[in-house]
């Protein structure tokens, strides 16, 4: 049971402002993922919430109470570190019970709580081992167990999966998501991996260079990115960006011309734009279609395949069109295009995005229904 409120949070190292005036609300039981490229300040922000890093300015409140000056353990938080940070000289059970031991909890109660957490995480057979005798995934589970035992108001995760191999990462991702459901806890999770963010979050906070670019549900960010940065960061493979010029603005959308004169009408509001303005058009690789030559559709872009990556179930084609512009296309596994084959790409204007030259997106005329799929929070009692 905890809400977190950040108001005008700042972090300054010497003369460098690494976080500027950041405000964010985290609801009770929400799974919030802070995501961004390295150096964007997401880990610093998490460490400030944890109390490991001093807050240079602004207010941090937990359940409405200002906690800026409280030491970490008094904030009622638990943190899972990227390096697991287990105590190497203690057994798994002692690692998990350490906080309780410091708090003066009796031995029986400690063991009972550790046993409970171990059961949730399937760690029971490992309780007497030292961390060095565990695999990476097991260590990660112990680190999570250490957090669970404390019964914190908020769980903090600092890139907890980045030291695991790919298969284990997927498995732990599912386990953490499941844990979030069963513990009904507020969780704040930092990662640079947008797939982790998309799959686990109730709410994603995209950070860039010390400020928040956009906050929203995963599909909200996917369908309605507010900036070029978010559009490029969310989604894999990355969105294609094509230079274009506005040719006309109407109530049905904004029509732009590509460098070869091809016109595309995108259903976004062109308020403030006029013919001739330079814009960037974004189109996701999964929305690009490879088509056969069709004289009825003069809008197709002709080009050739540069690289073909076949994953079995899907194919990524890297194509060159418009005299050197690279466009990526994600298609079904059964695509037969080879390197150097000629290809025609069809852009569906309805799926495109337009960005002004300052990087801001032109707002879409209609909400994508998928973007609001999870807008209503699931009633917590339904699960129990």
């Amino acid at each position: 049971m905890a809400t977190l409120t950040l108001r005008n949070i700042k972090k300054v190292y010497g003369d460098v402002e690494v976080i500027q005036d950041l405000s964010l609300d985290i609801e009770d039981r929400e799974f919030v993922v802070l995501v961004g490229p390295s150096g964007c300040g997401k880990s610093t922000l998490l460490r400030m919430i944890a109390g490991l890093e001093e807050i240079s300015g602004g207010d941090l409140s937990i359940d409405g109470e200002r906690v800026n000056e409280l030491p970490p353990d008094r904030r009622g938080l638990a943190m899972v570190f990227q390096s697991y940070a287990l105590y190497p000289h203690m057994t798994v059970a002692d690692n998990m019970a350490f906080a309780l031991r410091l708090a003066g909890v009796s031995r029986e109660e400690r063991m009972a709580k550790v046993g409970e957490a171990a059961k949730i995480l399937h760690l029971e057979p490992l309780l007497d081992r030292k961390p060095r005798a565990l695999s990476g995934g097991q260590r990660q589970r112990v680190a999570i167990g250490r957090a669970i035992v404390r019964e914190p108001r908020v769980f903090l995760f600092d890139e907890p999966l980045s030291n695991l191999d790919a298969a284990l990462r997927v498995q732990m991702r599912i386990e953490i998501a499941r844990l979030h459901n069963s513990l009904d806890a507020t969780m704040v999770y930092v990662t640079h991996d947008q797939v982790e963010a998309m799959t686990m979050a109730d709410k994603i906070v995209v950070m860039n260079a010390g400020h928040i670019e956009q906050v929203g549900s995963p599909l909200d960010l996917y369908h309605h990115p507010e900036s070029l940065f978010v559009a490029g960061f969310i989604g894999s493979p990355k969105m294609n960006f094509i230079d274009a010029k506005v040719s006309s603005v109407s109530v049905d959308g904004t029509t732009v011309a590509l460098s070869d004169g091809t016109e595309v009408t995108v259903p976004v509001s062109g308020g403030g734009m006029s013919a001739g303005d330079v814009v960037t058009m974004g189109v996701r690789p999964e929305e690009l279609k490879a088509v056969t030559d069709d004289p009825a559709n003069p809008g197709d872009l002709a080009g050739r395949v540069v690289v073909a990556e076949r994953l079995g179930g899907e194919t990524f084609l890297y194509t060159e069109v418009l005299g050197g512009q690279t466009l990526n296309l994600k298609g079904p596994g059964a695509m037969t295009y080879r390197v150097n084959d000629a290809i025609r790409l069809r852009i569906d204007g309805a799926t495109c995005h337009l960005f002004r030259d300052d990087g801001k997106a032109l707002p879409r005329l209609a909400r994508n229904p998928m973007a609001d799929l999870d807008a209503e929070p699931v009633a917590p009692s339904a699960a129990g």
Partner: protein
Amino acid sequence: MPTSQRHKLMMTLLGWVVAFLVFFPVLWMFLTSFKTELDAVSGTPNIFFEPTLENYAAVQERADYFRFAMNSIIISFGSTILALLFAIPAAYAMAFFPGKRTRGTLLWMLSTKMLPPVGVLVPVYLIFRDLRLLDSHMGLVIVFALMNLPIIVWMLFTFFKEVPKDILEAGRMDGASPRQELRFILVPLSVPGIASTGLLSVILAWNEAFWSLNLTTVAAAPLTVFIASFSSPEGLFWAKLSAASTMAIAPILIFGWLSQKQLVRGLTFGAVK
């Protein structure tokens, strides 16, 4: 023979040569201690001789070896424990809560080792006289602890620096106060480092002669004073001096050998990741 293998052989050979050069004086002293005085001073060094224990008997007759040895043990271990008590918290603070002047403080501490001890001999002597610390265990314990403190802080600082910060931060999240962090996390994790630092401190204190000779006479005199007393005005007695020296280094040699095994075991302790 491939070059890498030849290189390895050369390095091994070089290693042995260096080791022998370092060890030779000790070996020669050990051999000399079993010779008669006549054999000991003979111009042509001989390895084959009839060993005798008469030097050891003579040494023990002249001075009570065990009293000196006991003094050495009390003073080296006492000064090491005292120094560690101060150095562990100091190195902890410097490694994990560095300030603007931490680096400077460390260098300044080390710079005190560059001052020749004789420069402060008179003031220290006078202070000790007034405090009645001359020829006392406590006096030498304090001097040796202070003498070794810079090196001990430096060594511990480097060992503590190697403990991942995350682990201490995890401790802080778990509610450990700085003192509890030190006691439950940092010290147990740094046992090998603390042990090797302590070992070095014991050896340095054991070998110290300058302050021992100047600040003690009989009651608290350690083994270095015991050896010095054999280079007497009556002339040098090589064989007896060798016997005394062998007896003086024997305890620390045995101690070092035993703790070396501890240390090697300690070095394989707890990997973090």
